[in-house]
């Protein structure tokens, strides 16, 4: 009998059963935490939107320079890195495409491939992830440290709305920054793509290449590109500001908040990207 029990307990199913409550509890906690974060982020986004509307034009002499400052930080100052990335992206896409399409004589699709891969997908997403890495992380650290050092209380004591002063410029600045950088990345990648094709002796004239690009692009591409990049920038700014500001932090908690903000920003961007793919497919 004992032997029977022992063999039953040693079966994989028996080993799993005692752990099942712990596993469901773990999953439940995770789901609950996820829902709470989602609720917090949603509330924070609504509050920020509310402040943007109700305080529109208020303290213009202070807020406008801060928006320019944030747009420059999340845009112009990252331009050299993005030009390098554009050259690399053009090489990767054209290099792979030529090596696969040239043997079947499908060089006529180079422009189309560039539009699908760079304009619709990689350009906006790569830009968002790079801005997140360079500026989003800095946002959480700056705001988390400011929160831990009592700077937010100091703003409140001075009657200055922390959302208006700290968050609104970052959201607008980052949205504009991601949009502008995506445009530069795409233009750079399309240009460098042709150069790499030229280097690889692809018999394609510049006029033909740009004709391919133009015929692959539609008005919807331009509209969705703008909406998508502005959404990426806003979401990254909101998630990083939320983790830096929305709850009281101690200095030692700033690194944890940064990791959480990066992970959630990536998930949010990928989900938005998936939503736009669906829109493309439907339309």
């Amino acid at each position, binding site marked *: 009998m004992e032997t029977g029990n022992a063999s039953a307990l040693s079966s994989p199913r028996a080993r799993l059963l005692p752990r099942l409550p712990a596993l469901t509890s773990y999953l439940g906690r995770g789901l609950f935490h996820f829902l709470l974060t989602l609720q917090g982020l949603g509330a924070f986004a609504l509050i920020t939107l509310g402040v943007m509307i109700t305080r529109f034009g208020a*303290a*213009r002499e202070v807020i406008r320079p801060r928006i320019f400052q944030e747009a420059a930080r999340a845009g112009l100052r990252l331009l050299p890195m993005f030009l390098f990335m554009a050259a690399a992206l053009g090489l990767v896409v054209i290099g792979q495409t030529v090596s696969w399409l040239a043997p079947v004589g499908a060089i006529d699709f180079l422009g189309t491939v560039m539009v699908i891969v760079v304009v619709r997908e990689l350009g906006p997403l790569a830009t968002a992830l790079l801005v997140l890495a360079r500026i989003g992380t800095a946002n959480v650290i700056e705001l988390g440290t400011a929160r831990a050092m*009592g*700077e937010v209380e*100091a703003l409140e*004591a001075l*009657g200055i709305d922390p959302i208006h002063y700290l968050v609104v410029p970052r959201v607008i600045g980052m949205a504009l920054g991601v949009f502008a950088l995506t445009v530069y990345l795409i233009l750079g990648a399309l240009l460098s793509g042709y150069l790499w094709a030229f280097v690889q002796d692809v018999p394609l004239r510049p006029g033909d290449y740009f004709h391919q690009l133009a015929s692959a692009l539609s008005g919807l591409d331009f509209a969705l590109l703008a909406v998508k990049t502005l959404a990426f920038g806003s979401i990254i700014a909101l998630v990083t500001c939320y983790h830096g500001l929305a709850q009281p932090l101690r200095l030692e908690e700033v690194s944890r908040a940064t990791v959480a903000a990066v992970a959630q920003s990536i998930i949010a961007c990928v989900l938005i990207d998936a939503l736009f793919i669906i829109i493309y497919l439907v339309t």
Partner: protein
Amino acid sequence: MTGHLPAPAGAPAIEMTDVAVGAMRDPDTIVAKQINWTVNAGEYWVVAGLHGSGKSDFLMLTGGLMPPRQGRYQFFGGAMPIFEEARLKERLRLGLVFDGGQLFNHLTVAENIALPLRYHYNLSRSQAAATVSKLLECTELAPWAESTPGTLGRGWQKRVGLARALALKPEVLLVDGPLAGLDPRHVKWWLGFLDQLAKGHPLMQGRPLTLVVTTADIRPWKGHARQFAVLRNHGFVVLGAWEQLKAASGELVRELLTEPSQTE
């Protein structure tokens, strides 16, 4: 500057009835309760208490950064804290100087002082420059106007916090531990400057300021502050003038009066 006519001397500025103070970082903890306290316009109070007695939390509540856990707190007759945009001018009648200055590290000293002015009155840098320059001179901070707060010593950082709080010309000024960790030269300057503010500083157009200061060492305030209170055992005891303080019994009062302090 705040758009209100200054309250006449003797009018109630701060009125607390059965107020309980929660900790700023841990709302579930009560640091002081059953506080019944009235501060009239033009008075100069020192609230003493040992480290950990909740002085800073008490001042954060008085400064309107958190609501009382219990009881009623009125500021110039209106309910505090004030979060409504419509009552912002009322809220700006009160200035708060934090223990560590709590300065904005991404701004220079001059920008820190100019920020509340520029934000509330939508001023450009040049429009705020004259007021900022006066504040820098009064607080002897002019040589560090373009430095960032991180490059200044603690004593100077506190002065930046004071200048920033005075920029909006408040009627009531709360100062958290102004003498903590300062050398005798800074201590002398603070006591002298606060006296001038209480009597009417030219910076405030000669209008006397209502002052509430917290401290862990009560002795330097003899001859300066006019009223004293003590935070002890989660309670708030109003002691009155220095003579009444000297006459008060209790271990804490004796400690505050006689213990040599290492912190101030």
